[in-house]
């Protein structure tokens, strides 16, 4: 603050102005509105003591500042009242980082530079800033006149009678950053026009530029704008309130993600406190053939979802065999209904690594058992999980009934976006997912093979043809033309 008082001169004013805003960008600026005051003549404001650094000016203090200011300033007040304003607007759009040419406030800066006594309150508490009009009205004993530059040029002002002219300026944050900058630039144009009109009329004035409410709240200022001056995280010190707000913001974002994608945790069987088997699917339905018709039952809501805990009694997990059991009641007319996923792992010599397979998917209902074999198609290396978009026994089947007489032939089971891991589970999360679909499908491979063969043939043929040349050994451009005799 000492530097502030020393440097109150026209030239140092703007840099002080911006430096203070930069300083204060690292301080507590939530829900405060800056207030800029300058006069066209008279240096009465120079004697005014500015607030201490970081101090938020309240209503009464604002009143006293205005009173002191008006004691020595001209009584024609131009109040530029923007809908919203925060210090961040100046740091972002004011060319504060050396890019003065991009500044959206050229007229404002010029006015402050040329003013003999500018005055800045960087942080006026929000409810107080909306009372500026009322306080000025009280102190000047006049009612405010709401104007714009056209009406001002028609008005005749004189220096002796006090006047309070209010110019309402808009503010908007559109979807893109550019619109805010354009709006502020427009407001600055209005300020410039008004000041030039006042100068042409040679009327002394006091100008105040402030807003009714702040344009940014603390939490939003952290999150989105990583542009020039927008990202403040490096300069911030740890503040309990900001930590809480940041945490809240993060949770809000997470919930938004979850609601959007239907994300929920997998079915997790824990053995000895650690997750041993994980199962996730977007959809799980079973159907049974009864009287010539397929009766479906959707088990997704009973198995998967946020806060859904299916009963896993009977599941077990050891080094070489894992078995996940999902227990249900009253499904498709059966009192007890269980889905069993039996997995095993072993070392395979040819590939020299361990693989696990989903040996069987069993449906146990009222004492009977329907078994599907899955080991032919559902397999993955031991360290990874297995993932497949569609695991069914009827549509591109990966599960087949064990025998042709098995009750499984009367059942249909279908998983959508299926992922399972029965071994090497660490941290309660799936390992890398070995997908059932490779990069090239068999059809693509066949097409590639035949087309590459044909391209090879084509290349070779082309090469041969291109090395045929017309014989030019006996060409003699200067000799006589060839004559073919008519007789034999």
């Amino acid at each position, binding site marked *: 603050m000492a530097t502030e008082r020393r440097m109150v001169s026209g030239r140092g004013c703007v840099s002080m102005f911006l430096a203070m805003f930069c300083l204060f960008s690292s301080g507590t600026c939530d829900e405060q509105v800056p207030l800029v005051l300058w006069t066209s003549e008279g240096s009465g404001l120079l004697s005014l003591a500015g607030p201490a650094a970081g101090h938020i000016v309240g209503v009464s203090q604002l009143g006293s500042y205005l009173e002191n200011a008006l004691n020595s300033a001209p009584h024609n007040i131009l109040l530029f009242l923007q809908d919203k304003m925060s210090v961040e607007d100046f740091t972002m759009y004011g060319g504060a980082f050396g890019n003065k040419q991009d500044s959206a406030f050229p007229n404002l800066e010029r006015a402050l530079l040329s003013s003999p006594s500018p005055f800045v309150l960087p942080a006026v508490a929000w409810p107080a800033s909306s009372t500026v009009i009322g306080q000025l009205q009280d102190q000047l004993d006049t009612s405010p006149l709401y104007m714009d530059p056209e009406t001002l040029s028609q008005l005749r002002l004189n220096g002796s009678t006090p006047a309070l002219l209010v110019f309402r300026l808009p503010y908007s944050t559109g979807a893109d950053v550019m619109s805010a900058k354009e709006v502020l630039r427009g407001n600055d144009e209005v300020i410039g026009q008004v000041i030039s009109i006042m100068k042409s009329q040679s009327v002394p004035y006091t100008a105040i530029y402030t807003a009714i409410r702040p344009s940014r709240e603390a939490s939003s200022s952290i999150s989105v704008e990583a542009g020039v001056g927008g990202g403040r995280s490096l300069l911030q010190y740890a503040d309990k309130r900001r930590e809480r707000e940041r945490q809240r913001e993060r949770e809000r974002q997470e919930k938004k993600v979850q609601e959007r994608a239907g994300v929920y945790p997998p079915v997790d069987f824990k053995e000895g406190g650690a997750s041993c088997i994980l199962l996730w699917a977007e959809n799980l339905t079973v159907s049974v053939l009864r009287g010539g018709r397929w009766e479906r039952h959707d088990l997704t809501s009973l198995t998967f979802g946020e806060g859904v805990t299916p009963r896993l009694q009977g599941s077990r997990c050891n080094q070489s065999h894992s078995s996940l059991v999902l227990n249900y009641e009253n499904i498709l007319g059966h009192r007890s209904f269980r889905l069993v996923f039996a997995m095993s792992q072993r070392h395979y010599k040819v*590939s020299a690594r361990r693989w696990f397979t989903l040996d069987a998917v069993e449906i146990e209902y009222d004492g009977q058992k329907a078994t599907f074999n899955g080991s*032919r198609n559902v397999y993955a290396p031991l360290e990874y999980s297995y993932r497949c978009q569609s695991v069914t026994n009827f549509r591109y089947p990966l599960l087949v009934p064990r025998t042709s007489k098995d009750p499984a032939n009367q059942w249909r089971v279908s998983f959508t976006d299926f992922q399972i891991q029965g071994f090497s589970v660490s941290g309660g999360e799936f390992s890398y997912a070995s997908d059932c679909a*490779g*990069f090239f499908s*068999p059809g693509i*491979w066949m097409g590639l093979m*035949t087309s590459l063969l044909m391209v090879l043939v084509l290349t070779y043929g082309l*090469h041969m043809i291109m090395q045929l040349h017309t014989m030019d050994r006996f060409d003699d451009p200067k000799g006589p033309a060839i004559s073919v005799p008519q007789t034999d």
Partner: protein
Amino acid sequence: MYLLILQFSDKFFYSSTACTVLSRTLMHPTHADNYENVSIIFILHWWCFSGICYTIFDLGFRFDVAWFLTETSPFMWANLGIGLAISLSVVGAAWGIYITGSSIIGGGVKAPRIKTKNLVSIIFCEAVAIYGIIMAIVISNMAENFSGTTPETIGARNYQAGYSMFGAGLTVGFSNLFCGICVGIVGSGAALADAQNGSLFVKILIVEIFGSAIGLFGVIVAILQTSKVKMGD
């Protein structure tokens, strides 16, 4: 072939380095033109790069030759065999006739007496094409429809049929290709020698007969390969 054998194993690092080494040796400047060089280099380097990537990310298990051989349709293999049988044989025959024919015509300008005798060389070349078409017809008669769609339902017999037909087509095709070229070059020499000295021709014909026999070997082996083929349900 060396490359294929290496890629069968799990040691893809070696395959990738072998890949790079081979690509250098294959880039013999006399064998291919510039544009072929570029495409071969591109393809080989892409193989090397993808092999290295699979190795680094421990995704070597994704390179599954068994999956490729069981998922691709036996029909493709069978028909490739038939196509290759006839096309490669015809390439051999055509090349041989082109070489012999131009020599006979050229030599016949100064020694017209050679033209009738040397047609025997052309006939030897043509025989190679006839072997090719006969084998193509024989092999295509073995191609039957089957109704399976998964490896289990297709059955081992159909896979054996597909691969045998592919192998037989390859056998007869390549042996006829080289037989045709061989007979062509020998026939061309025979025509020019005959033009110089008429007594040389009969002895040179023996060389051509030996050359022709190798085409016949290919046909015999192809017939043996497809003798046990039974495609269908």
